[in-house]
């Protein structure tokens, strides 16, 4: 693809993903929110394809849009928690929410500002790497073997934790 068509796809997908994210926050129905999030994940997967990383794009769809969001929907539907109840005034904690949200937004704006005024993220300097599955696998298991294994152990710990928590307690004799 030429750089012009890449730019058009980028603009389209950026619009789709940002508006889907905003709609996810605004929609009052939890199932609709989940669907907007799925759209967001899919648009980001298209961005990965444009960035010449098809492997990551497919994994993004399989893991996020496929497995995780189906689980979200499953939980929402099982609990019957589609409709958002008004949370204002519950325990009087909403002012903390606002304060925390304000601080986070301020940090985000400052971060963007710093990046923009320092002249971009330096993305132009990164080398174009071979993103085929084989190259990715070799890179993961040769250059980044330690982080990979550490992540694996973390995930394993989480799985074991879930198994322990959901196990039925035996009756004490």
């Amino acid at each position, binding site marked *: 693809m030429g750089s012009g068509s890449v730019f058009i796809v980028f603009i389209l997908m950026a619009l789709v993903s940002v508006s889907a994210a905003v709609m996810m926050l605004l929609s009052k129905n939890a199932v609709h929110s989940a669907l907007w999030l799925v759209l967001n994940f899919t648009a980001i997967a298209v961005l990965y394809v444009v960035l010449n990383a098809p492997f990551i794009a*497919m994994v993004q769809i399989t893991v996020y849009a*496929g497995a995780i969001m189906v689980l979200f*929907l499953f939980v929402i539907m099982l609990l019957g928690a*589609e409709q958002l109840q008004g949370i204002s005034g519950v325990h009087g904690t909403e002012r903390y929410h606002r304060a925390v949200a304000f601080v986070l937004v301020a940090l985000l704006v400052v971060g963007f500002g710093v990046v923009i005024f320092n002249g971009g993220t330096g993305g132009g300097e990164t080398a174009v790497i071979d993103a085929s599955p084989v190259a990715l696998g070799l890179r993961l298991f040769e250059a980044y073997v330690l982080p990979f294994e550490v992540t694996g152990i973390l995930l394993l710990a989480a799985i074991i934790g879930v198994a322990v928590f959901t196990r039925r307690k035996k009756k004490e004799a």
Partner: protein
Amino acid sequence: MTPGQIALRALIVGFIVSFAIITGFAYTTLLERKVLARLQHRVGPNRAGYIPLPRRGGGPERKLLAGFLQPAADAVKLFFKEDMTPGKVDRITYTLAPMITVMPAIILLAVIPWAGEITIFGAEFTPYFAIAPGLNVAVLFLLAITSISVYGVVLAGWASNSKYAILGGIRASAQMISYELALGLTVLIPIMLADSMNLGDIVAAQANGWFVFRQPLAAIVFFIGMMAELQRAPFDLLEAEQELSAGFNVEYSGMRFGMFFMAEYMKMIIFSAIIVVLFFGGYRGPFVDQLPGLGFLYMILKIIFFLFMMIWIRASFPRFRYDQLMGLGWKRLLPISVFNFIIVAVFIVLQEEGVFDSLLKLLGVG
């Protein structure tokens, strides 16, 4: 080729393949009804369309190909039925759900190789005949699209605002998550044996023997997981007529119901094509290297074989109970596929390191 030519070629091939699959869907419904009827000692649909053959010496005429216009009659019926929207449904999701069900079924077609390197009317199709040939993450693409294909059913169940439908939807999501794990792990085995995620390479690697002979266990697990993904009997708990009346699609009528129907049969064809490509040699068969056009024929014959298997299984097995379904998925198929995966991986590494050669030498054979 320029990007424009590639896109044009994909468009033309996509049009042909989509048209073929829609025709195939119509005749798969007829195949299912006829075969089921034969397996139950009935005749099946035989009124709509036949070729009359006069019988020698008078008597009633014989009917050839009885019922071959039945799919057309069904389509006309579905289109002209009233398309109702019940009162308290979630209107947008209710309308979107049938479309979300059909779309993944069609998108899956994009990477399936239908024939080898072939020249049709002077147009060369390399490295193989598909809508998007040569994709190096094709197997992952299949898994990704399969994993989002559950949304249609789940959303149809939820949006219908009906207890039966939502039970069907919840069952569907639990079932698909459970069986996707075993399916994903078995898909890795052809990838490892062929050393590629490109479906063309996987087919080419089976030139000297289909993977089903090298890994029969993986093929069986894949077939079972595939039936569960398709929600065919005996895994059709989400539309169990006796318990849920019709499950997720109980509130749908007219062509919107027809779209669920269509998605089910199209996915039957496409998953048959996937198992053929991964384990049964794809378009390969006798003389296919001399006559590449035979690839289409072999592919279609193998697909029809698997469609027949699925219909046969539907007629033979009772539906699973819910705990049996979950037990089979998590306690049997998942461990089997994990251990199979590990064993295959270890053996491939041992072979590449030349351990077997030195063992044979040690025994004085090699």
